[in-house]
């Protein structure tokens, strides 16, 4: 294979983070990440970025919304 291994790693990385790679692809990524500082750093970065994006949504419901939802109970189209 003549492809740049870092390009290949970049291609696998999002699915690696999603844990959706096949066993063979996963092993391929692992082997490369263990040996390549360039890609390992980018893996760490992508991982923190995912966490950070998730954090932006750590917002609880506004107070009062639950009470409004509770009031909706008992609606029943077939009753």
């Amino acid at each position, binding site marked *: 294979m003549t492809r740049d291994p870092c390009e290949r790693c970049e291609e696998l990385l999002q699915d690696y983070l999603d844990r959706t790679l096949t066993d063979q692809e996963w092993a391929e990524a692992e082997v490369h990440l263990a040996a390549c500082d360039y890609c390992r750093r*980018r893996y760490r970065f992508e991982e923190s970025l995912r966490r950070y994006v998730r954090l*932006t*949504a750590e*917002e609880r*419901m506004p107070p009062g919304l639950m009470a*409004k*939802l509770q009031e909706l*109970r008992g609606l029943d189209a077939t009753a």
Partner: protein
Amino acid sequence: MSEPEPAAEARRIASRERDRVRFEEEALALADQVYRVARRLVGSREEAEDLVQETYARAFRSWDSFTPGTNLRAWLLRILTNLNVDRGRRVQRTPPTQPLEETDYYLANKVASAAGEEALEQDVVVERLSQDAVVKALSELPPQFREAVVLVDIGDFTYQDAAQILDVPIGTVMSRLHRGRRALKRKLAEEALP
């Protein structure tokens, strides 16, 4: 001998009522998670609140069509994303043709040239991007990309669940998700690392 009709009917009604109450309790226990997804799908807190209320009103009305034992959170989110489309919040049905997104490493490379290769391994580096920048970048994604990113990366849905919620093939979810993540990174790079 069959029991008298009215007694059987009363028992049937009572049992149905118990099922309904259980459904409502289970649905309400998920309200925070449903709100969180709604909040990132629409522009304002008020819109998110409205959308969640409409979702629960519809869910409570049609609770009978939920199959117990299946994924209730996905069922609720399917109602929510459909209502969101109906309300015309999702303006375009297909993402506009966009310039080809940058590569997956685009943002990381920008950060590395601004702060050094080693910085990529420090969690603080993403904190250089403000939360506001992330929220803004998410809100500017084409709606179909945003739905995929919000459901999978914020709502923690599997590709499969997201495909069911959005009623599209799983390959479509994956492609929107990948393109959405890239577009998000490009926007972050533009805004936070000019």
